[in-house]
């Protein structure tokens, strides 16, 4: 069968997902909902499906009968769409973070359990080839027993082509900690097991930086005894960069997205174009991590197996991120 997909949200992730759904085998995009037709219309036209606006979710379900609801709306709205999609019995793909608050996370887990619907969260970093390779190497014993891990994710404050840039509002996005380095928290949990406590300092909650920049330095302790440091930056003007360092009692793994980029395009400054060098790291389409996560979801639905990133995984990652925000606000260690 071909799974019918309804995409909710056409922001940064919604656009990426729309494109990838057209590549996923066994699925087709049948509906796109956004706040307005101005936003959903062009995407629907591009992928030859039906456009909906806020709040036509019930119409969308009735008219297009989707099998999968793909939720790419701003974080605080995840709960209401998960609850409605679950009540309608749909399989749900939900972007990270699971929700803005733990009560919302609890409600999402309850809705998924009560309706017994398939669910997968968009913790896409697990599907990035360098992170997948690093984990496989660790699992294969390349560093012995992991002891000290450092990961970093550094970017400029995210842009959005709509007027309302909700990323800049930490009350909605949770800033760089909940919106961006939750990727690292999920991957670290996935690779190194449960986290027992967190301590962090950052700009979250400091009014003078609100909306203009965010930066956080986080320390995690694992049940295994290992320690990890996570850098999260929305203060880097120089482009997106990630780094990984995993040191153990038998070796060390390092990765840096800048130095591993096989292609750097440097263009002369002309007119209003600034002369900058942009590193690129192309892969074949089948290894695009956004494609891989959506294909993995569809494959799990077909096979009747549990999708690879569960609602409980997303719950735990959000719990770590919110504990980090609590630590930043209180200057206290937060035990999980």
């Amino acid at each position, binding site marked *: 069968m071909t799974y019918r997909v309804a995409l909710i949200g056409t922001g940064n992730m919604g656009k990426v997902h729309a494109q990838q759904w057209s590549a996923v085998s066994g699925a087709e995009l049948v509906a796109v909902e956004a706040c307005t037709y101005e936003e959903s219309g062009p995407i629907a036209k591009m992928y030859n499906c039906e456009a909906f606006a806020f709040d036509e979710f019930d119409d969308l379900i009735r008219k297009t009968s989707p099998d999968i609801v793909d939720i790419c709306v701003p974080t605080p709205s995840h709960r209401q769409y998960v609850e409605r999609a679950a009540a309608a019995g749909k399989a749900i793909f939900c972007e990270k973070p699971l929700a803005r608050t733990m009560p919302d996370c609890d409600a999402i887990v309850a809705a998924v359990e009560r309706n017994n619907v398939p669910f997968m969260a968009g913790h896409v970093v697990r599907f990035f080839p360098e992170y997948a390779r690093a984990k496989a190497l660790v699992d294969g014993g390349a560093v012995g027993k992991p002891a000290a891990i450092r990961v970093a994710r550094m970017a400029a404050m995210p842009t959005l082509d709509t007027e309302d840039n909700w990323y800049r509002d930490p009350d909605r996005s949770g800033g760089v900690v909940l919106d961006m380095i939750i990727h690292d928290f999920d991957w670290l949990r996935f690779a190194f097991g449960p986290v027992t406590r967190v301590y962090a300092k950052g700009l979250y909650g400091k009014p003078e930086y609100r909306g203009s920049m965010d930066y956080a330095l986080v320390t995690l302790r694992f049940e295994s005894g290992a320690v990890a440091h996570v850098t999260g930056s929305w203060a880097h*003007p120089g482009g997106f960069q990630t780094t990984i360092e995993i040191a153990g009692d038998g070796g060390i793994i390092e990765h840096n997205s800048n130095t591993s980029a096989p292609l750097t395009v440097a263009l002369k400054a002309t007119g209003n174009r600034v002369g900058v060098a942009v590193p690129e790291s192309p892969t074949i389409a089948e290894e695009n991590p956004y494609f891989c996560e959506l294909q993995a979801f569809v494959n799990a639905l077909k096979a009747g197996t549990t999708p690879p990133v569960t609602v409980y995984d997303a719950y735990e990652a959000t719990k770590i991120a919110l504990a980090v925000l609590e630590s930043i606000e209180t200057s206290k260690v937060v035990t999980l």
Partner: protein
Amino acid sequence: MTLKIGILSFAHMHAYSYALALKANPGAVITGIADPDPERGQKMAAEFGTTYYATDAELLAEGLDGVVICSENVRHRAAVEASVAAGVKAILCEKPLATTVEDARAMVDLCAAKGVKLATAFPCRYSPPFLRLKEQVQSGAIGKVVSIRGTNHGTMPGGWFTDKALSGGGAVIDHTVHVADLNRWLLGAEATDVYAEIGNGFYHQDWDDTGFLTIGYEGGVFATLDTSWSRPSSYPTWGDVTLQVVGTEGVIDLDMFAQNVVVYDERAGKAAWHNWGSGTDAGLVADFLRLVSGEDVPNLATGEDGLQALAVAVAAYKSADAGQAVAV
């Protein structure tokens, strides 16, 4: 006038490069090397063309202008006290200044009371890449500094460095003080609070080989520092000093020892980074000799600077014991 300088112990291998810098400096002569280990002391005395003394007291009796102390951490205080009693003008003490803040305070106070200049060996203050970073930050190029992410990774040094009775700890006491000093010098602010996760996951011994510190500063700047001895023998170099300084208008990344040529030598069986960056010990030693001569040397770290950096390391151990952030 040629300054008479004595070296008290080669227990810390940095003594070797300080001796090279002293030897190369026309303003000084190495009067002698005292070392309780006769084999090591005699070998070094022969190498640097100077006299070996079995005890500090015998060398100090030669009427020295200044001493360089490179004994085990816990022995720094006694060496400083003996040097002050012998009437030296200035002392350069290897880092960490001591193993307890009480010892460090006693050393600083004694030198102040007797008019002896006490300096702490923080060669990173003489790193041209760091000095360029400092110049950029102080010019306001990145606006107001909000955070500094630091690392001072290393290879496990072995020997007395892992004998807590002599070293005072493991990776945390060994590798906190350099970056703690750089941060403090850069910001002109004192550390107020420290949280630390400490571990022994690399060597599984009763000393720490892993240290992840989070440091708060007066004025609200925050920092982290990874002090871990996490570099295996297969790694292409001994370790690193890195700083990511984040400001309201930009970011500066420093990798102090990035000026390398990469060597793939079949005989070694691994890649190696050969650093061609400017050395820092010549500048440190030259400033120390100026201090001995009575000149003002604003870049040279004082005993108080050494004490404040040590206080961060001591607070890190306290924090790890308490399981919470502690005041410095």
